[in-house]
């Protein structure tokens, strides 16, 4: 039993840190640290840097452009990126479609799509949720009907993150109404430029445009865009959901956010409040514990154990910790959390400062991160999973 990383792992960490110091621009890191809006160009710039180094698709096998890391290395990399305030890698192509194609795609699909994910030719988005099918994904209704050498797709997807930038969407669609609802679902790749697709913005409660609705009206999709066989979409979706998620607890983000919280609190009266100090200490301890809980699950995975329901625990507790840090940040702002100058979240804002560091985005971040316990399988769904899988209840 040893919590220390090996000398090799420490050397790897140093290499990552050095590379980040040389390659992550102060401009980008500062935007991330202060929760500014990242443009499509910002994200593409970061992807290109990572891809040039060979670190973009860090889950992929070496022959397809992965760096050949083990789970601990991936964890260290993601952790250091978070601490350095690097932008998050947009996951849809690299972390979601990539693994699916690697496991279920044809050689032609792999050869065509994977390089285009790496070099940024294709921006992917995800077509899973529907207005009536969120946590209960199996009840989805968007229909794909085979007609000769193509499918005709009709229906609606929602919560499509960054869909406004996307060239392609991977979708779960209903190809059969026979049997259980799960059994009639297929996994389809759709060019966003096809006739009949309409993207409508969903504005979030802070006015941000981050997610979208995607409407399909008689959209023709070539049959070769099917991944796997017809009606095996649920198997693919489950594969992705249980796919190793080293970063699901978000301890890197929480660690960075907690450091920022401690720094900023000193500018407010909360610095003298023993009750606030206790709140910070509580989440600090919970995060120290969670780091080790996360490493334990990781070690089990690296040792060949399947991280199943344990990752649900990481998700629930990890998101609670991140949300609590956001909540404490908001508390520390007191009334100065109220001003909301949306331009202050864009590059080059020169308007007045109102409040301590972080006042400009404390409320926005607090509310925006309420999503953490909702998406990717709500925390209630995660608890159902743990109850069944770990406790046999």
């Amino acid at each position, binding site marked *: 039993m040893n919590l220390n990383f090996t000398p090799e792992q420490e050397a790897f960490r140093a290499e990552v840190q050095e590379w980040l110091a040389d390659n992550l621009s102060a401009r980008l890191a500062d935007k991330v640290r202060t929760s500014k809006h990242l443009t499509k160009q910002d994200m593409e710039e970061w992807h290109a840097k990572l891809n040039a180094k060979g670190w973009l698709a860090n889950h992929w096998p070496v022959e397809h452009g992965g760096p050949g890391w083990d789970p601990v290395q991936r964890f260290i990399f993601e952790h250091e990126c978070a601490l350095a305030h690097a932008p998050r890698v947009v996951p849809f192509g690299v972390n979601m479609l990539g693994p699916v194609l690697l496991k279920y795609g044809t050689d032609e699909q792999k050869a065509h799509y994977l390089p285009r994910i790496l070099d940024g030719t294709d921006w992917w988005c995800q077509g899973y*949720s529907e207005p*009536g099918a*969120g*946590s*209960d994904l199996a*009840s989805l209704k968007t229909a794909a009907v085979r007609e000769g050498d193509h499918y005709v797709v009709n229906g609606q997807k929602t*919560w499509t993150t960054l869909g406004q930038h996307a060239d392609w969407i991977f979708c779960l669609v209903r190809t059969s109404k026979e049997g259980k609802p799960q059994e009639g679902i297929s996994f389809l790749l759709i060019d966003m430029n096809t006739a009949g697709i309409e993207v409508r913005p*969903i*504005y*979030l*409660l*802070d*006015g941000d445009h981050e*997610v979208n609705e995607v409407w399909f009206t008689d959209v023709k999709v070539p049959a070769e865009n099917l991944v796997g066989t017809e009606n095996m979409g649920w198997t693919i979706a489950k594969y992705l959901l249980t796919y190793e998620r080293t970063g699901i607890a978000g301890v890197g983000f929480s660690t960075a956010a907690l450091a920022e919280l401690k720094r900023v609190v000193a*500018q*407010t*009266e909360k610095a003298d*409040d023993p*009750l*606030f100090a206790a*709140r910070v200490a509580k989440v600090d301890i919970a995060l120290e514990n969670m780091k080790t809980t996360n490493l334990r699950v990781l070690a089990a995975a690296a040792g060949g154990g399947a991280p199943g329901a344990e990752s649900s625990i990481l998700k629930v507790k990890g998101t609670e910790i991140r949300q609590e840090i956001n*909540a404490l940040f*908001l*508390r520390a*702002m*007191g*009334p*100065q*959390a*109220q*001003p*909301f*100058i949306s331009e202050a979240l864009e590059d080059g804002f020169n308007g*007045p400062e*109102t*409040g*301590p560091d972080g006042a400009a985005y404390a*409320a*926005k971040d*607090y*509310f*925006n991160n*309420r*999503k953490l*316990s*909702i*998406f990717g399988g*709500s*925390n*209630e769904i995660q*608890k159902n999973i743990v109850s069944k899988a770990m406790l046999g209840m």
Partner: protein
Amino acid sequence: MDFTPTDDRRMLADTLNRFLTDRYDHDTRMKIAGSEIGWSAELWAEMAELGLIGALFAEDEGGFGGHGFDIALIFEGLGRALVVEPFHGALAARALPADQREEVIAGALIPAFAHSEPGTSFAQDRLRTTVTDGKLSGTKVAVAQAEAAHIFIVSAQDSDGPALFMVNAEHANLTAYPLFDGGRGADVTFDDAPATRLSAPLDTVLNRALLALSAEALGIMERCKDTTVDYLKTRRQFGIPLSKFQALQHRAVDMVTEIEQTRSAVINAAHHLGGPGASKYAAAAKYTAAATGRMISEEAIQLHGGIAMTWEYDLAHAAKRLTMTAQIMGDEDVHLRRFPAL
């Protein structure tokens, strides 16, 4: 002991609710709250006309209410409708001389209440705004509807300790902005501004403000809870309504329980307003409303799921406003720490 409202208050509640239902529906509210000026002069005039400002004042102050229960009733209703007009400033007008107060009641004069300072939230003994020889200097933050105000009611220290002062708007320097939860506010800097010392003690005005914010939060909580319960009954998952999942049922019951406790806290504060227990029960109410408000807005969003995070869904705006009532005038920890000594 009597929990039935008087006939007068029943009529007042009817008037208030009818007006808000007819003239301040959610779409109207969103238009006003997001507009350039962040409030509606027209509706303000109508509300004054209906007596909604006058109800905040006693007869000898030129109004026809002014009891804690009147204030609670009005602000609970305003909270439920997410009203952004400058009622909090008007409430502080109790401190003003009779002439100005009557103008406020008529809707003609709009005051803003300027209390919070940078990095602080509530504490009277930390005021850094000072008055020397009738000149007031200092900075106040997040003053609601400051641009609309003709005068400012400002807390500050002079040689006799903390007190309230009146400053004309022409002597205030504003850095104005939209507020996260709708309407507008400003950071307000005073630089040797001519100031009139007001006779009303600071803490009586603060207690009124705490009661009003707590009652406002209560109204928003009820709205959030109703919306959430309705949604759970409508939305189906795995073939059955969400309202049939026991884990969600128990969480909804916890929401109701804490809201009932908040209602009691508001009643207590209203009952004791102006009496020896005023500060104690105002602190208890603000603590309860802030703690419960955070719980209700988080649970309402979580029990809805993603839809509650969208601009189009009205709960989102209720949750934002509810959260902000906890940020203003001291959060739960501030008032919890004050409570034992009160």
